């Protein structure tokens, strides 16, 4: 009995398995065309690929249409979630179920499939995460003066880079996916996941000639997103509240000193000022002190309750030689 082997077809990459994961939209317009567009690009470039469609509470008709596609197209997987979850949770489910060496997440309705091979090639060159940044040819005034500085500041606070143009269109290496799936936080953002892990990341910029959002609308959207990311991933705002509380405590202490000094120096004080001021200042001092202490505890609780591993290992290597201890004798 001999092992039957198959000839390797040429032309396409046959060493990588590329998974593309998309969350199905609620509206089903042109879905077949878009899925076919992705599969065409994948089939042209890779011998081994899969397209995982996550049905996140889409209408029943969507399921039927995808199953119809499955009858005639290869390597299509449909993962139906039990109800509609947030988009981030749906993407987490996709990452849990993809099997590829590289996993591409993208928005089925807007992201161009032609970019997939470019992103994957970049990732295969040594980056664990490649992010497609969709930029307008020219940035608006508000975006330049507000969004970019806010994102820069947030990046410094979080300790990893964030860009206002980042999208869901990105590639993750298997090593990164294996690390990301261990992060089970409910408030999760795809754009932060590699930041938390810390593997090598790069971005590929592409331009869209038409953007339906105005400059101000886009800035509002970006600011809301970055605030949410900051609050979900950092205790820095709580620390700020704590510092403010301590500062208020110090001001109250100073004011208490002022009250005592005035009561000693001045002979005539308005009736009731001393007792009222003392009571109010003491009470505020206590309140700010308690708030500061609470903020510190809540900040620690936030860190402790995040369902994240203590650390991630990028790789481990060992010596190529063994210790040469032949000269020593085992004699005491």
């Amino acid at each position, binding site marked *: *009995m001999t*092992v*039957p*082997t*198959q000839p390797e*077809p040429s032309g396409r990459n*046959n060493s990588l*398995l590329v998974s593309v994961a998309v969350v199905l939209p609620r509206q089903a317009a042109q879905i077949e065309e878009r899925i076919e567009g992705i599969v065409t690009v994948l089939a042209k470039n890779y*011998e*081994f690929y*899969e397209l995982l469609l996550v049905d996140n509470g889409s209408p029943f008709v969507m399921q039927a249409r995808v199953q119809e596609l499955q009858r005639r197209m290869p390597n299509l997987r449909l993962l139906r979630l039990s109800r509609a979850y947030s988009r981030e949770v749906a993407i987490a489910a996709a990452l*849990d179920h993809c*099997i*590829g*060496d590289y996993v591409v997440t993208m928005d089925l309705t807007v992201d161009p499939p032609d970019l997939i091979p470019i992103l994957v090639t970049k990732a295969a060159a040594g980056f664990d995460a490649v992010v497609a940044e969709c930029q307008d040819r020219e940035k608006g005034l508000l975006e330049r003066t507000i969004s970019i500085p806010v994102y820069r500041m947030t990046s410094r606070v979080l300790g990893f880079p964030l860009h206002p143009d980042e999208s869901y269109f990105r590639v993750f290496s298997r090593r990164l996916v*294996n690390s990301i*799936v*261990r992060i089970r936080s409910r408030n999760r953002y795809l754009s932060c996941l590699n930041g938390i892990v810390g593997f090598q990341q790069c971005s590929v910029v592409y331009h869209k000639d038409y953007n339906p959002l105005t400059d101000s609308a886009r800035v509002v959207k970006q600011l809301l997103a970055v605030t949410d990311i900051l609050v979900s991933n950092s205790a820095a705002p709580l620390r700020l509240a704590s510092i403010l509380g301590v500062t208020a405590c110090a001001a109250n202490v100073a004011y208490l000193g002022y009250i005592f000094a005035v009561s000693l120096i001045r002979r005539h004080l308005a009736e009731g000022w001393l007792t009222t001021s003392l009571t109010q200042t003491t009470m505020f001092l206590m309140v700010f002190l308690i708030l500061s202490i609470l903020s510190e505890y809540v900040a620690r609780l936030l860190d402790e309750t995040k369902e994240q591993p203590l650390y991630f290992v990028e790789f481990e290597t060992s010596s190529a030689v063994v210790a040469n201890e032949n000269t020593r004798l085992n004699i005491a």
Partner: protein
Amino acid sequence: MPGSTPNRDFYDAIIVGGGFFGCSLALSLVKRQPRILILEREASLLTRASMANQARVHNGYHYPRSLITALRSAYNYPRFLADFEDCVERSFTQVYAIARSDSRVNAYQYRKFCELTGIPLHPVPRHVQDLFNPALIEEAFVVEECAFNALRLRDKLRHAVEESGIEVAYDTEAHRVFQGPTGTLRVELKDGGELGADHVWNCTYSQVNELLSRSSLPRLPLKHEIAEVALVRVPPQLEHIGITVMDGPFFSTMPFPALGLHSLTHVTYTPHESWTDSSQHRPPPRAPQLPSRSAFMLRDAQRYVPILQQATHAGSLFQTKTVLLRNEVDDGRPILCRRNYGLPNFSVILGAKIDNVYDVLKAIDGDVRYSKSADDRTYSARAVGAQ
């Protein structure tokens, strides 16, 4: 040595299909019906489904959702080991692991199922435990299950058939079965010849319905699928270990003794195409050459057992796998047995697991001895002890 052309034109029984079930049936019948002919369309016995499968000897662990299949596998296991001691590979550790998510049973339920079935579970040694990704595997167990060597099995069956005086016609395909003018069964051969028999058995596995159709008999509700068993070279740490991840869209890799490799099958990627006989007539191709899906199987398996990243694909076996339609949900694998199907003394047998052959022989009131030297008392003691 059996010849390739039948020596007579009338037999006590003609068995169409020289696979494991056909040969076992012949050996079972030969005491009562000495003139037996096996019609085999290939040049050798046990070439297709009996050869191209995972080579697992089931002890019941595989069927937590079909208790009867599990119980019968566990019951027949010691007897199969006794009959085919020289054909089974037992020198490896068989491990069943329960996936943390997407599994239809959890570790607790699986343990209870094994208790109920009476099959032992042992704790995994540390070096085996370390092979699994703990984020994806809830618990792993060492089980008592082995693999058979398909080549040795074929030799043993061929020897037993020859020893029993059973005639085999190789490269001979039955075209149809019909009732002759005198009431006896007639088998028309594809090359134009015709044979008579008191009994005819259809043991052609995936071709069961084809023979029924050509004989103008009703087709059975079957589902066929082209199944790929990938053959892989595993790293040394896995050489003596078989791993099966339960119970859902997972994989199994275990030694394939006939080639000295590991077989790799995956619930999602092993079936390439499937079709039912009732919906649309579609004869299965004789030698399907489909692009291998081993890359998919390996990638998914590597998530659960990271060391499989060092495994390499060495080739694939393709075969048409046939199951009863009603067992798609519970994954049970009963043997289909229809006596006097459409014609008197014409019977159909379709088996899925070779170790369950004793059930069908019992159902037709027969028994089988694969070797003249087999000592029944020894077997009985083993069977009782193992139970």
